[in-house]
């Protein structure tokens, strides 16, 4: 069903197409917003030496919330749902489905390409923001470890959200709208509920992986959090990714896509 050469061909093609698009450049710029804020705060703190800014806390309050509560979801919503909808909307799907490549290869490779693009955009912004905000503590092992945790959690988040939105894109016409409602409606509320309800969100498992806070700090990210264990969170996120991707492939095989009005 899945051929290695097909996957490689399709992956490099979609990565090339995706990374050249204006959308990628725009998202790349947006990913550095927290870094710009931290630079401004650094300059202000240099001009006003009497003020003490807790930069580590600032990273969690601004950077953490920006990346883990908003930007990852937003980015994955666009890249995940576009795995199939872009091909249908631009009527380019026909070139893929009339080539001797399996539908499983098409979905898998384009998902991989878009996930890599999302990951590159997220990790670049996250890394630079972390370095700027924790500049004086970078050589401390605890901070380097936390950087690794942030990057790892971000990658798992990209996988889980991208696969969910890929699935939505395979069977919904308004997948962006539904995705926005899911992320900024359901997840925004359910993650703060006690008990099992919070486990019906992806963000719960991502937040479970994140540090509770740097020494002496608290973060909006961990507000009312009853975290799952790290193992449970990682397994759940990987399982969801596989599940969503598999269902996407099954739907792609079952569904027919009308690319234009009948003639």
């Amino acid at each position, binding site marked *: 069903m899945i051929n290695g*050469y*097909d996957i490689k*061909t*399709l992956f490099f*093609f979609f990565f*090339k*197409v995706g990374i*050249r*698009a204006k959308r990628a450049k725009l998202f790349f710029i947006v990913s550095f917003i927290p870094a710009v804020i931290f630079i401004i705060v650094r300059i202000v703190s240099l001009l006003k030496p009497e003020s003490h800014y807790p930069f580590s806390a600032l990273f969690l309050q601004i950077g953490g919330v920006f990346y883990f509560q908003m930007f990852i979801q937003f980015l994955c919503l666009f890249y995940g749902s576009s795995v199939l909808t872009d091909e249908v909307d*631009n*009527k*380019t799907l*026909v*070139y*893929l*489905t*009339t*080539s*001797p*490549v*399996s*539908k499983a290869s098409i979905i898998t490779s384009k998902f991989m390409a878009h996930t890599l693009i999302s990951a590159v955009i997220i990790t670049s912004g996250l890394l630079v923001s972390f370095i700027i905000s924790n500049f004086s503590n970078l050589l401390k092992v605890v901070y380097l470890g936390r950087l690794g945790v942030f990057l790892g959690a971000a990658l798992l988040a990209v996988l889980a959200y991208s696969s969910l939105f890929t699935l939505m894109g395979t069977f919904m016409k308004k997948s962006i709208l539904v995705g926005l409602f899911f992320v900024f409606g359901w997840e925004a509320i359910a993650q703060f509920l006690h008990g099992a309800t919070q486990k019906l969100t992806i963000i719960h498992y991502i937040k479970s992986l994140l540090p509770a806070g740097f020494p002496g700090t608290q973060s909006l990210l961990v507000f009312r959090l009853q975290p799952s264990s790290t193992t449970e969170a990682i397994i759940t996120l990987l399982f969801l990714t596989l599940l969503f991707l598999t269902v996407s492939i099954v739907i792609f*095989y079952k569904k*027919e*896509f*009308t*690319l*234009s009005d*009948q*003639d």
Partner: protein
Amino acid sequence: MESNTNTDTVLKAEKLSKWYGNILGISEISVHVKPGIQGLLGPNGAGKSTFLKIASGQLKQNLGKISVFGEPVFNNHTLFSRIGFCPEHDSYYKDITGWEFMTFLAKCHGFKGKKAVDMAGASLERVGMTENAQKPISAFSLGMRQRLKVASSIVHNPELLILDEPLRGVDPLWRVKIIKLIKEFEKEGKTVIVSSHILPEIEAMTNNITLIHQGKIFAHGDIQEIRSLIDTHPHQVSIQCKKPRLAAKKLIRHDFVLNIHFDDTENKIVIKTNNRESFFDTMMKIIVENGIEVDEMISPDDNLQAVFDYLIGR
């Protein structure tokens, strides 16, 4: 298309029906396509593209059966190493060059390294796109994109070529060259199914045509028979000129002119004729010999829809 079954049948459709919600796409189409060029002619909305989309595995029929090279088409991706498809719509990847697109498709068809490059180069050359191949597709004209689409369908040298309106938007010079290319495929013993809503286009490629109308096969066979039916179709020709009454006087004596309607306010006459060719030959002579300045000459019902309406007696 043939009604009997033979071992060399490339495409076989049995009572194929497809509808989109309440709208009928095609109804009970049964055809057998053998090697050679098969023209599919019908007005817009007749069901040509629906049939070709089912034949190329993009759509699944609601009723009936279809096989290509003896195999089912839908979800049978391995079959597409033998089929080339040129879609009707103007669709392309915006941020890549024509060359990148073609090498990608060659690789999708399993060609590797230099072979993929050679296959992409050869197909681009056949449609005269070698020089422009390094430009982004978004910078191509409609005609160039159309030629690229044709190249994309032949990159793997398929045994069956399905072309949905391949000449749409192509300039006259390349129209002739693409028709020649299609004929070359036929000479190589391959099968080409080509659709159009323009009779002369199909006529230039093949004598073997199928007329499709309102989702059903209306007639199939030799194009000359269809042509003779069309030639006896009473045509209306509207002429706006400086001397309409003189033109009418000269025309009315010919028996192929059925009637003439005058519109003095616009210096216009509308002539009904049952012999299109004789009418135009004579009209040209009258214009030249009498120095009549013609502002406009149009044939309002000179389209396939009008011909079909005539043929089905509406």
